[in-house]
């Protein structure tokens, strides 16, 4: 679980996860085109996300596609939220989302 928190502690990596959340799966080339950094740097971030289990890379034909794997994030929720008030917590995040009109976390 520590690897998940370390992977999530970086803004670029959160942006990569946002892109994968919006588009199902992306190749390294597709990911690079939306980020202003070298292919090597994006590849390094992807490696950290893969080690943490947040990204799964799967070969599809000739290319490698990267998918967001939501299970480690679910496990964080299950560990500290599920037992108490998942519905209430969800209502509050939905309210926050509505008030902020879906703006992505930039901090």
């Amino acid at each position, binding site marked *: 679980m*520590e690897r998940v928190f370390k992977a999530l502690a970086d803004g670029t990596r959160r942006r990569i996860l946002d892109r994968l959340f919006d588009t*199902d799966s992306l190749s390294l080339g597709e990911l690079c085109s939306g980020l202003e950094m070298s292919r090597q740097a994006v590849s390094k971030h992807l490696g950290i996300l893969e080690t943490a289990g947040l990204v799964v890379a799967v070969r599809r034909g000739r290319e490698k596609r990267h*998918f967001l*794997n939501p299970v*480690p994030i*679910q*496990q964080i929720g299950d560990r500290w939220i*599920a037992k108490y008030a998942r519905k209430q917590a969800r209502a509050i995040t939905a309210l926050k989302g509505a008030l902020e009109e879906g703006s992505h976390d930039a901090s």
Partner: protein
Amino acid sequence: MHPEHIYQTYIRTTPQRLWEAITSPEFTRQYFHCMHIDCDWQPGSEVKFRYDDGRVGCEGTLLDCVPPRLLRYTWRFLFDEELARERPSTVTFEIEPSGENCRLRVTHNDFDADSKVFPMISEGWSEVISSLKSLLETGAALEVAGNTEASRGAA
């Protein structure tokens, strides 16, 4: 590109036990929204997920069954009339031993581009897989997936 979801986790268990968890009704009802799986495990046969009262929540056709490595079936969601009319999608379970753990990868794909089921299922699968992991590692499924006893997920 057709819509596709992949879920992956490592579970401290053996391939045989994990296979049993995804194919035996006593196991699935503990972590799969109280539904038990019903199939004779012959490719081409029907797969049904039933509640205790006999109602069927999901159904499909068994495509591949290679114990304890690969299970693939088509998937039709019956909870809602409109969703039930959609063409069935495909769910694949792949089990890969990894040291003292097993890697479980669940792929759900073969959706039409405008599928209404696709955006609905993501959270459901995450809950089910997290609960399955908890059941195999601690002996208790999670409350969110229908079990009464909450348990703490292993780190």
